[in-house]
């Protein structure tokens, strides 16, 4: 096939090795651990950047290792994968910084950072996997590496949440496993992009392929938190803020969404999927989840819970975009993968900052918080505008494309769903913004952290500002080459105009 390259493997190793080393360190070797962590994170961003540059020049990277007979471990770089890998690596760097600040002085940090690194390894592995089997391996690895993070606090509540999380994800993984093996047996080892294999089989194995599609979709829908398989997401909010941020913005939920994208576009192929009417049920469930998540979010007083239900809703934009056939909606779906990540991570950072600095975790406590933490809340507000879909923030771009795509495909009801969702987004996010900026604080709040001149610790503040700005920039500079939108367009172009 293509020239074998160690580079994709290096991208994985850049977080795997630090993670392993951190595991072997002692708890009190803080500077070394921090150094390793940051080294890995920076290296990963650098490597992804390098590969990206190379890919742009037209080079191809793949790493293939035969596990057993026809079972192949394959890492391959393509645009979609790189896109997701870039998102993961950049957000990992930011989140690592945040986590160092957030967990300062906490317990079991060795374990935390080790698994944190593993988690990102899994996430980039998912991004770069070249075939279904490799994808599945990392998909399960992700489940395992996030479990210790969810139960990190060790409280009974956390452990209970961990259990729910596991039942859902292991269950989903098992169902996916069934589908993956079934696909393997029916169609052989499918590399992503080889849609012609399914195309060739469609006349003889139509029923099997349909069943397998839905089996795999069910498995992926668990992590993508599509109704009714979303139950684990709000519960696992007990995890520390960086974990929630990573889980809900990048690693876990995106793994599911990304998997759906891969399944539809690179395994079955959008044409076949459409032809076999596989996408309508997905569209319906996604649309319902969008509305359902928003409605549930309305009634949450817990800050992180509200964010979690918002995630449930927002994630289904991606699934919905995938389910609507057309260049524009595909662009919207792919770009939302990134946009939603940046915006949601901003929100979780902000929530974490507030909780860490003032100990507030309920929305009703947030009166006037904007005056005390202007930068944090500023970034949060940007993200809110994005979520609602106000220009020029990133979220607007994705919604715009999704809407256009729906119109293009003639699915006007989707436009209605999008509008309703936007309205609901506004309904549950704007009150927070309003409280934060325009309400008088109820009582005299004493910061739990002494942070000098800044509103909170620098390590907590910088990430939120950076991601806030990023989500603004992604919208403002959407038209510039190299922006998420431009890349998403290229991906969509390749799909529709071969």
């Amino acid at each position: 096939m293509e020239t074998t390259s160690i580079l994709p493997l290096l991208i994985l190793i850049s977080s795997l090795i630090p993670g392993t080393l951190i595991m072997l360190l002692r708890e009190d070797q803080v500077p070394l651990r921090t150094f390793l962590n940051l080294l890995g994170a920076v290296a990963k961003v650098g490597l992804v950047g390098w590969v990206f540059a190379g890919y742009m020049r037209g080079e191809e990277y793949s790493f293939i290792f035969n596990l057993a007979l026809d079972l192949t471990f394959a890492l391959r770089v393509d645009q979609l994968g790189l896109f997701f890998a870039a998102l993961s690596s950049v957000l990992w760097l930011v989140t690592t910084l945040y986590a160092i600040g957030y967990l300062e002085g906490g317990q079991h940090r060795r374990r935390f950072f080790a698994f944190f690194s593993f988690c990102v390894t899994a996430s980039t592995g998912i991004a770069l996997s070249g075939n279904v089997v490799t994808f599945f391996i990392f998909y399960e690895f992700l489940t395992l590496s996030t479990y210790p993070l969810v139960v990190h606090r060790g409280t009974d509540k956390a452990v209970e949440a961990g259990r729910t999380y596991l039942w859902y994800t292991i269950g989903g993984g098992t169902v996916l496993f069934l589908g993956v093996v079934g696909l393997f047996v029916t169609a052989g080892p499918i590399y992503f992009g080889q849609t012609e294999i399914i195309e060739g089989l469609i006349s003889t194995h139509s029923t099997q392929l349909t069943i397998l599609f839905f089996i795999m979709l069910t498995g992926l829908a668990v992590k993508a938190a599509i109704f009714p398989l979303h139950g684990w997401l709000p519960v696992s909010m007990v995890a520390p803020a960086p974990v929630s941020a990573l889980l809900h913005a990048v690693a876990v939920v995106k793994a599911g969404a990304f998997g759906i994208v891969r399944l539809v576009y690179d395994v079955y192929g959008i044409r076949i999927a459409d032809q076999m009417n596989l996408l309508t049920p997905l569209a319906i469930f996604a649309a319902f989840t969008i509305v359902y998540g928003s409605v549930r979010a309305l009634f949450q007083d817990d800050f992180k819970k509200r964010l979690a239900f918002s995630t449930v809703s927002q994630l289904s934009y991606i699934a919905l975009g995938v389910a609507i056939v057309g260049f524009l909606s595909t662009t919207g779906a792919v770009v939302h993968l990134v946009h939603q990540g940046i915006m949601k991570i901003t929100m979780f950072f902000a929530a974490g900052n507030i909780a860490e600095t003032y100990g507030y975790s309920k929305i009703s406590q947030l009166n006037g918080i904007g005056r005390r933490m202007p930068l944090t809340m500023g970034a949060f507000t940007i993200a809110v505008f994005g979520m609602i879909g106000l220009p020029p923030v990133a979220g607007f771009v994705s919604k715009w494309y999704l809407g256009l795509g729906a119109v293009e495909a003639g699915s006007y009801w989707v436009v209605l769903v999008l509008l309703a969702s936007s309205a609901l987004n506004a309904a549950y996010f704007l009150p927070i913004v309003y409280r934060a900026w325009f309400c008088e604080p109820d009582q005299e709040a004493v910061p739990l952290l002494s942070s000098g001149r800044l509103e909170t610790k620098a390590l907590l503040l910088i990430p939120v500002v950076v991601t806030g700005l990023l989500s603004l920039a992604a919208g403002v500079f959407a038209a510039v080459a190299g922006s998420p939108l431009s890349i998403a367009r290229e991906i969509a172009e390749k799909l529709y105009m071969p």
Partner: protein
Amino acid sequence: MTDLPTSPFPAFLVGLPVLLATLSLFFRARGKAVVGLAGSLLTGVMALFALFEVTRRGTVIHILGGWEPPLGILLRMDPLAAVFIGMTAVVGIFISLYAWRYFRAQEATTGGFPLFWPLWLFLWAGLNGLFLSNDLFNLFVTLEVIGISAVALAVLSGKKTALVAGLRYLLVAITGSMAYLFGVALIYGSTGTLDLGLLGQVLEPGTTTTFALLVITLGLMIKMAGFPFHFWLPPAHSSALAPVSALLSALVVKGAFYILLRLWMEVFGVSLTYAAGQLIGLAGAIAVIWGSWQAFMQTSLKLIVAHSSVAQLGYLLMIFPLLILAPGVTADSADWLSPAWTAGVYQVIAHAFAKASFFLSAGIIIMALGHDRIESLRDLVGHMRITALAIAIAGVSLIGLPPSGGFMAKWMLLKGIFLSGQWWWAPVVLTGSLLTAGYVFMLLRLAFAPAREKEAFRPVPRSLEVCALVLALGSFLIVLPADNLIQFLQSGEVFGTGIESIMEGGAHGND
């Protein structure tokens, strides 16, 4: 058959452990242990050399006494036997090292169980003999060697529960052996030979053959604790000493499976029926679900692990229906057989490593806590992180998550299931995985949970933890040579000519 290259290795693989076991009897307590450990290492190393020899020269044989079958007995070391012997060697070496340290640590209070060593070496000889044997009656003798030494090891602790469980185990084992032997008698009566290779050529289908197949299969299922004969396993395995539990579940039950696989593939190809396969598969399926569920309901670690063995052995039974296609069905792929039986072999290996590690970890925990009630596992991660890690890794392999050995086994099993068109087994495999995940993560959840009250964790030798961890890692590392291993297994015409009748059944549909 007899034109294959001969090698002295098979003779030594059986003789050496017996020699060392016998010699160790001349020593007193500590000396027995020294000789025993040295003997284990020696046997293990030699087994690995033998494995190497087979990879180099292919199947080798040893014609005992120079008398060729059918009058004499032939030892045959083909890739399948070599893989089982190699597995026994690796797992055996680590369990021996563990046992040495484990018994040393309690020498003052218990006397250090010196009898463990000769019995274990006898057991090892029996296992090697079983894997090498190519003779129906000789298989019976090796089964008995294994049975007696295994029960003797199981009751070594001298506790009441162990004795009762041991007696039940022994009676069941004798019953199984006798049922097997009855089948052997009928086979001998109708063919006049006991050699597996010859039988594969001359055995004719008929009432007698079918009945022999029935009693042999039942007898072996009793010995490998297949449902509904699983009742003896959990008490026997859970009440034994930790290294013994590891040996029993990792190696001993696999012996019966090995014979069953050999006989079905090599000898009874002519009289297998679809219904027989489905029945044994059903037993396996029930074992998977029931065993996992029972494991989930237990409150002591060793009982969880022991019930888990019932379930994991169920997977082994589930490969048998895949060998026989439904009447009129032709397989999609010409080679639908090899995923099925290699899945069985892989499951055996993966389970051996993972389960041995699990039981060794349980032993460490008992040593540290004085008991193994799982509510005391709280904050295990804080106290004994190596053991916790070993449990986690072994558990993940048991569940079958990638990229563990258990995953490879399940992958191939599911592949076999789909290739043979018997999709209805797939949900069982997955439900079993989920239930396994249930009890494994129940343990891990507790391991991560904060301690409610101060549990007194006594210090435990680090080397014990390392042994458990190495075996757990082994259950992952076996994925790396998977490709070579499977090719190796399929290289040596493992099942002689007998397998042809099974292949024909697949091609024409069975009647």
